């Protein structure tokens, strides 16, 4: 009898195997791997563009003249429809799990990102690990069509560039979908997105020629940070202000800053190796007050003025100058965000929420207003210049006067 029973188990297995076949199977060569997607608003419709890898162009025996990626685009009132409509143009199913970049044009961002982004959260294929950016002054579709020289796959180029620049050049914000999701669900913080644009001749930039000589005709660039209120883009931060944003959000890993030499002509450049900001909310006279404790460690990277770096006094003066210039940047950044845009992208509201949950309940409703008008931001700095690099003095000796 045991034999029968076991054969029963085998029967079950065999039946499940043979009978219904493979429902959800997707062979690799049936997939169009989408690496980047763009959303443009055209009238009342969304124009969704996707950048799909052409796998034969990726293989070793690639045929030289084919572009490594293809761009499909389609218009529909909703994202999902547009994506599905694309199947009429491509033999492969768009596979979204490997999405690296999602780019929206400014119009879409200004109309509200919640709606077009909903699909990317809901769909089971999309993973919450791609970056989102706003195409500044360009169409998202153009961004996808650009031929990039450094990497064969433009989307990977963008992805890596964003990662690297966030690590070593502060004025960009690599916002991935998880962070965006978080900032959108929390009350006391508003989202930001990095801006992306193309410099140069777009018409040539779309052709393979763009990657065929050392200097490209057109290239992308991450420029500044877009500031949102709720889910609508309301403005842009310039380079300095973006840097301020990153300092305050404690997202500076490393950056460089140009500082005027104290008492001399010329500038010197510091390389920030460590930056740490603590946000300390407090209530003074019933008004919100926040203290930002900024701790910075930096090295001198470049000196354009004639100073004697062996002199501790000079060095201290430089340190002070560096600190002052940082303070100016931060204050300008905060001022712009607070007074001009009046949207709390720094999450100061969240900080109050964490520390004073009761008070927050009262403030929650009118926080945007309070942020703009009542909030006092105080900054305290602890700026340390440490090292000089391989050489000590400026190469040019001070000529005898």
């Amino acid at each position, binding site marked *: 009898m045991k034999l029968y*029973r076991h054969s029963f*188990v085998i029967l*079950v*297995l065999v039946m*499940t195997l043979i009978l*219904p076949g493979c*429902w*959800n199977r997707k062979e690799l060569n049936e997939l169009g791997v989408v690496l980047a997607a763009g959303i443009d608003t055209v009238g009342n419709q969304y124009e969704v563009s996707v950048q799909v890898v052409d796998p034969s162009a990726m293989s070793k025996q690639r045929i030289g003249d084919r572009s490594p990626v293809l761009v499909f685009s389609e218009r529909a009132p909703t994202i999902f429809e547009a994506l599905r409509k694309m199947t009429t143009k491509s033999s492969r199913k768009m596979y979204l799990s490997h999405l690296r970049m999602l780019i929206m044009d400014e119009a879409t961002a200004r109309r509200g990102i919640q709606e077009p982004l909903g699909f990317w959260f809901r769909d*089971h294929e999309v*993973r*919450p*690990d791609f970056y989102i950016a706003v195409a500044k002054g360009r169409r998202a579709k153009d961004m996808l069509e650009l031929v990039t020289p450094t990497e064969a796959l433009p989307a990977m180029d963008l992805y890596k560039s964003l990662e690297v620049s966030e690590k070593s050049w502060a004025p960009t914000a690599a916002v*991935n979908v*998880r962070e965006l*999701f*978080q900032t*959108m*669900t*929390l009350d006391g913080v508003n989202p930001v997105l990095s801006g992306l644009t193309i410099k140069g001749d777009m018409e040539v930039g779309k052709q393979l020629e763009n990657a065929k000589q050392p200097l490209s005709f057109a290239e992308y660039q991450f420029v500044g940070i877009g500031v949102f209120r709720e889910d609508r883009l309301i403005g842009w931060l310039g380079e300095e202000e973006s840097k301020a944003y990153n300092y305050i959000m404690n997202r500076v890993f490393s950056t460089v800053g140009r500082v005027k030499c104290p008492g001399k002509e010329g500038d010197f450049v510091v390389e920030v190796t460590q930056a740490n900001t603590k946000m300390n909310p407090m209530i003074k006279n019933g008004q919100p007050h926040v203290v930002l404790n900024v701790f910075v460690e930096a090295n001198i990277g470049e000196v354009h003025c004639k100073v004697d770096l062996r002199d501790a006094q000079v060095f201290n003066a430089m340190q002070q100058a560096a600190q002052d210039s940082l303070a100016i940047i931060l204050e300008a950044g905060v001022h712009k965000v607070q007074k001009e845009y009046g949207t709390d992208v720094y999450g100061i509201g*969240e900080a109050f*929420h*964490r*520390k*004073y*949950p009761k008070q927050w309940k009262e403030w929650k409703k009118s926080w945007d207003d309070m942020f703009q008008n009542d909030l006092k931001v105080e900054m305290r700095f602890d700026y340390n210049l440490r090292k000089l690099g391989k050489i000590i003095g400026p190469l040019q000796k001070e000529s005898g006067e």
Partner: protein
Amino acid sequence: MRKMILTTRQATFWFTLHQLGSALLVIPSTLVFIAKQDAWLAVPVALAAHLLLLLLYFRIANRLNGQTFHEHVVSILGKWGGGLCLVVFVMAYPFLTFTLVIRDLGDFLTGVMMPETPSEAIYLLMLAAVWYVVHGGVRTIGRTVELLFFAFLFLFVLLTVSLIPSMNMDYILPLFENGPKPIFLASISLFAFPYFESVLFLFLASHMQYIQQWKTVVVRSALLSGGMFFLVVFVVIGVISQGVVADVAYPSFFVVRTISIGGFFERFEVIVAVLWYITIFFRLSLLLYVSSYALAGIFRLKDWRSLLIPLCTLGFFIAPLTWPNTSVQMQSIRAWPYYTVLFGVLFPMVIWLIGSFRGNHGKK
């Protein structure tokens, strides 16, 4: 000395995995929806409440004297009354839960892993596996769980450890934002599901050598699973913040999707799924075993195994009927605790009260 079928170790692991069961994937969302960032506090509260409830179960267990639980119920409520109560109990609680778990599994797989696969195929495969392990009897289940628990533990630790670097303690704050009330309310959900199901362990008490062993096992497994729930809820809130947790269907799955360590240690959320299949497997095995064992006992069948296939079939066909769509399911999650109170608290309470009344009566 009674015949020992389950060792303490086996029983502890089995019960733990049973309790983790489907809750591991679903419960963070439920708790966080109610208690926001304080949800992790609901876990110890529920655990404490559960330990109190266990005292009641222990009282009953003390009275078993080598009887199985269903024999005990019959001896208290009489042949017909007890039998009827038990049949209702079994069909409406362990068996219904059995079908719900199957359904949960199907919903998860078709929802986030393989949307085009028919749920029936998923049910069939899992039920075949569960049938096979339960058919081997408690002994086989015990051995299997002993082996697989380490796989489970390994995966669990791997996941938790890999999540810790991405945690942001700010998301845990502020504590007690809305006072203790939501925490208690949230803890009810956890207390009811899965901890009321500990009443089913009474059916297994007769498989242990001593009742004392059974008690330690139940407490230990509660602590173990409670600790894991705590860790999961805590880590999940810490990584993706309460707003997101409450808004995604399977937070512990979602959270792993966001992980990328060093650019290569990423995209391993399938581990969560595997983890979950393992717990579901043992959860189903316990529910099926208890259902068929108790039913066979009530109807005085020679072999409880003869009910396995019919029960699996019934479960297979009831599963699609449990809820027509996800919204009904969401809604039912809120009512479910109050339904299970009937079985997790009222039923044992009645048994205990009548039992002690009769016991005292007999002594006088």
